[in-house]
C-alpha cells in the first residue's frame, strides 16, 4: 500500500492557525451592561484591532438588574469595575501589545450616561498615559 499523500497537510494546518488567529481577535466579551452608543458624522474607523481595548459604560442588563441595581456601571473585560481600576486594566492590556505607544482606548458608553462617569474614566486614562481615546459611535448622515 502506498504512503498517504501528506503534501497538503501544511495548508490545512495553516488554515486552522489562521482560523484561531481570527477568532481570538474577534473575541467579544459577554456584555453585562446595555448601551446605545451615540450617532455622529465625523467618525474614524478603528483600523488596528490589536491595539484597541474597550471600556463599556451603561446600566446593567435586564437579568443582572436584580443584583446590581439600575445605576450606571463600568465594565472591564468580563466584570464590573470601578473607575480607578481602569489604570490596572490599561496596564494589563498594554502588556500584550507590540506597539504600546499606539494603544487606543475605545469608550462604548450609553447615550444617557452622566458625564461624571466619563470624566472619571478620562482622568484615570490620563494618569495612566493612555491618551489616545475613541468615543464609539454609529454613523449618521
Amino acid at each position, binding site marked *: *500500500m*502506498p504512503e498517504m*499523500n501528506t*503534501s*497538503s497537510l501544511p*495548508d*490545512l494546518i*495553516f*488554515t486552522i492557525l*489562521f*482560523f484561531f488567529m*481570527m477568532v481570538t*481577535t*474577534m473575541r467579544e466579551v459577554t456584555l453585562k451592561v446595555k448601551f446605545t452608543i*451615540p450617532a*455622529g*458624522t*465625523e*467618525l*474614524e*474607523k*478603528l483600523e488596528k484591532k490589536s491595539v*484597541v481595548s474597550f471600556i463599556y459604560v451603561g446600566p446593567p442588563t435586564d437579568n443582572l438588574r436584580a443584583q446590581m441595581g439600575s445605576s450606571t456601571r463600568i465594565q472591564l473585560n468580563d466584570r464590573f469595575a470601578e473607575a480607578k481600576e481602569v489604570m490596572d486594566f490599561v496596564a494589563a492590556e498594554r502588556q500584550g501589545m507590540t506597539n504600546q505607544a499606539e494603544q*487606543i482606548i*475605545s469608550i462604548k*458608553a*450609553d*447615550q*444617557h*450616561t*452622566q*458625564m*461624571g462617569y*466619563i*470624566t472619571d474614566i*478620562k482622568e484615570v*486614562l*490620563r*494618569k495612566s*498615559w*493612555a*491618551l*489616545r*481615546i*475613541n*468615543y*464609539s*459611535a*454609529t*454613523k449618521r448622515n
Partner: protein
Amino acid sequence: MPGLNTTSTADISFMLLIFFLVTTSMDTDMGLARRLPKPPDPDQEDATMDIKSRNILYVRINAAGQLWIKDEMNSGYGELGELRARVKEFVKNEQNLSKLPEKHVKNIDLLGQCFVTDKHVVSLQTDRGTPYNMYFQVQNELVAAYNELRNEVSKQKFGREYQYLKDEEKKAIREYYPQNISEAEPKKYGGDQ
C-alpha cells in the same frame, strides 16, 4: 492505487482563509477619535497659562444639556446647530476683528507665510450631570468645524480635500488650523459667572 489528487487543497484552504478575513473585518468599529492632554506634572505648581480673553471660546454644557457659548463678540445660550458656524467664525477670524483670536504671520512648510490664529483655544466644560450624548454631539460639531476649515484651506492651497492629501501636506494644514480643544476639570457652576 493512485494517490488522492490533492492539488486543489491549497485553493480550498485559501478560500477558507479569505472567507475568515472578509467576515472578521466586516464589523468595523467606528468612533470619534480624540487625544487626551498629558497628565499634569506634579513638580509644576499651577500651570494655568495666561491666555488673552479674545483667544478663548467657551463652550459649556450644563446638567440639563443646554449649551452656553461665549467669546468676546457675544455670549449666551445657544443651539447645537449654530455651534459649528460659531466655532468656524471664531477660529477663522476672516476679517481680523479685534474681538476674535489674534492673527499673526507664521512660516509653514509648503504653505509659506500664513496669517494664522494658532493661539486660539476652544474651552469645553461639562457638568458631572451632563448627558453623554450631548457632550458627544458637541465634540462631533467641534471636530466637524475644524474638518470643514481644513478642507477649505486644503482645497484652496492644494486643490484637494484634506483626506486625500499627502502626509506632509496634512501636517502643514494641521499647523494652519491646529485643533486646540481644552477640556478643563468639570465643575459645578451655579450663579456666578
